[in-house]
C-alpha cells in the first residue's frame, strides 16, 4: 500500500498541485490571483510531462561516447531526415546506455512558450481592465457592469418617452 503510494509520489504531487491551481483559477475574485492559478496549472502540466519522460536508471538524453552515431565523412555527410527516421528504429536497439525520453522535454519547451504568452497577454488585459474600471476584483467589475447596464436602460427608456411625446 505505502509502496504503491510512494512509488508514485511525483504523480500525487502533480494531482495535488493541479487541484489547488484549478481551484484558484476558478474561485479567486482577484484577477491576478486567478492568473497565478492558471499559470500554476500550466506549470503542473509541464511537470507531468517531465515525469512521464523519466526512464528508470536513464540519464540525460545526450548521447554518450559509445552511442555516438558513426559518420565516416563527418557530420557534413549526415543522412537526410527520411533516412534517419527509417534508421532510428534499428539504432534504438544498439544503444549501450539508457536515456530518458527527450521528446516530452521538447514538447514542454513549446508548452512553456505558450504559457508565457498566455500569462503576458492576461497581465496586459488586467492592466487595461484596471484602466477602464479602476479595480481588478472580478466581483467589483461585475457590480460596475450591472450598474452601467441599469443606467443605460433607464436612459433608453427616457429617450423613448421623449420620442413618443
Amino acid at each position, binding site marked *: 500500500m505505502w509502496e504503491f503510494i510512494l512509488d508514485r509520489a511525483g504523480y500525487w504531487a502533480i494531482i495535488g498541485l493541479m487541484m489547488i491551481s*484549478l481551484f484558484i483559477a476558478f474561485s479567486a475574485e482577484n484577477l491576478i490571483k486567478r492568473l497565478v492559478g492558471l499559470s500554476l496549472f500550466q506549470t503542473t502540466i509541464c511537470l507531468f510531462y517531465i515525469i512521464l519522460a523519466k526512464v528508470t536508471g536513464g540519464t540525460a538524453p545526450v548521447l554518450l561516447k559509445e552511442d555516438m552515431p558513426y559518420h565516416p565523412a563527418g557530420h557534413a555527410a549526415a543522412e537526410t*531526415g527520411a533516412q534517419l527516421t527509417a534508421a532510428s528504429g534499428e539504432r534504438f536497439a544498439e544503444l549501450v546506455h539508457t536515456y530518458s525520453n527527450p521528446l516530452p522535454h521538447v514538447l514542454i519547451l513549446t508548452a512553456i512558450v505558450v504559457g508565457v*504568452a*498566455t500569462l503576458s497577454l492576461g497581465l496586459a488585459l488586467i492592466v*487595461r481592465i484596471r484602466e477602464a*474600471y479602476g479595480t481588478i476584483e472580478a466581483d467589483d467589475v461585475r457590480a460596475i457592469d450591472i450598474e452601467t447596464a441599469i443606467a443605460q436602460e433607464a436612459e433608453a427608456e427616457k429617450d423613448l418617452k421623449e420620442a413618443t411625446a
Partner: protein
Amino acid sequence: MILETLLATAPDWALRHAAILVPVVPLVMAPILALSPSARLGWVLTLATTAAALYFSLLTLGIVQSLPGGVISYAVGNWAPPIGIEVRVDALNAMVLLIVTGMAFLGTIFAWPTLVSEIRKEKIALFLSAFLLCVSGLCGVTATGDAFNLFVFLEISSLSTYVLVAMGSSRDRRALPAAFDYLIMGTLGASFYIIGVGFLYAATGTLNMADLAAQLPGLTGNRSVQVGFAFIIVGLGLKAAMWPLHQWLPNAYAYSPSFVTMFLAATATKVAIYALVRWLFTIFQPDYAFEQALFYWILAPLGIAAMVICSFQAVFQTDIRRMLAYSSVAQVGYMLLGVSIGTAAGVSAGLLHLFNHALMKGALFMAVAGICLTYKGTTIRDFAGLGRSAPFTMAAFAIAGLSLIGVPLTAGFMSKLQLGYALFDHGWWWAVLLVVFSSFLAVFYVGRILQAVFFQAPVNPRKHRKEAPLLLLIPLWILALANIYFGIDATFPIGLANDAAVAALGQEAFR
C-alpha cells in the same frame, strides 16, 4: 467544375505544397502586416492573404477529391511520419478548411468599413495581423495530423482571439472582462487537451494521429487511455462551447468588434467541433464500449440540453448579438446531437449543419454589424422599423434568420431534415421531437427581431433611409443567396458532408 479548372491551371509547387500552404501563408504574412505603415495597405494585404489561403484550400479540396485514397499526407520538413510532423488532409479537413478560409475571405471584404468605425486608426494593421494569426491557427488545427501540433495551433488561434475580442473595448469596456474570462476558460480547455495527449503519449509512445489510431485498438481496457480520452473531450468541448461549458461565449460574442464576432461565430467553434469529430471517430473508434456510453449518456443529452435551454435563453435576450450568441450554443447542440448518433448519416448531418450554420450566422452577424455601423445600436429597440430605412441589409438578415429557424427552401431546413432522418434511422424519435421544439423556440427569438424590424414604426426619429456600405452588402448578400441556393440544391454541401463523414468513420480512408 471550378475545382477542375483550378487544378488544371495550378503550378506544380502549389499542387505539391497546397495542404501546408493554407496555414503557412497567413502565418508568414501576419508579422509582415504588423509592420505595415498604413491601415489601408494592411487591409489590402489581408485580403490578398486570405484570398491565397482560400485558393490553396480549394486546391486541397480538389486534390483530395481526385485522389483515389482521398488523403493528402505531407511530411513537414521532409521528416517522414510518424516521427516527423505530418499534415494530413482528407475530405473532413478539406471541408472545414474551405469553411474557415472562405469565411475569412468574405469577412475581410466586409471588415474595412466596420474596422474604420470601431478600431483606432493606428491599430488597424496590428488588428489585422492578429486576425491573420487567428486564421492561421484555425487552419493549422484543421490541417495537422499531429496531436501535439494541434495544441500549438489551437493556442495560436486562441491567443490571437483573446486579443481580437479585447479590441472591442473602444466601443464597450465590457469587452475586457469578457476577453479575460475567455482567456481563463480557453487556456483551461487547451490545458485539459494537452493533459489528455500526455496520457495517450504515455500509453502509446506516439503523437501522430494516424499512428495513434493504429495503436489504440490494442489498448481498449487501458485506464490511462480512457483518462486521456476524457480529458481531451472536456478540453475540446470547452473550445467548442459544448453546453454547459459555453459560459465564455455570449459575452465574448456580444462585446467584441462586429467583424470579430462574425468571424468567430462562423469558424472558431466549428474548428473545435471538427477536432472533436476527428478524435471521436478517427483516432478512437466508436465501437469502444466507453465511447458508446459517452455518446448515449453525455454527448446526446448535452447536445439536447444546449438546443432547448440556450434557445430559451435566446428568447429572453434584448441585445441581438447576445441572442445570436445563445443561438450559436444551441446550434452547437444540433451538431453534437448529430455526431452523437455515431452513424455515418448522423455525422454527415452534424457536419452539414456545421457548414450551413457558418453560412447563416455569418450572414446574420454581418447584417447586425451593418446596422451597428450606421445606427449605433444592437438592442431590439434599435432595430425597430429598420425594414424601411435599410431594406437591403434587413432582407438579407431576414433570409438568414429564416434559415436559422429552418424554414423550407433555406439551407437550415436541409440540415435539420438530414438530422431528422439520421435520428429516425437510429430510433431516437424523441430527439426529433426536441429538434422540432427547439426550432419552434427559434421561431420566437428570430420572430421577435423580424417583427420589430418590419412591422414596428421606428422609435428613433433620426433613422432616415440609410443602407450599410456596399463593401458590407456584397459579402452579406453572397452569404444570404448561398443560404437560399443550398436550401434548394444542396448537392454540393451534402456531398461534402457525406464524404467528410465517410472519411471520419472509415479507417481505410484515413489510412
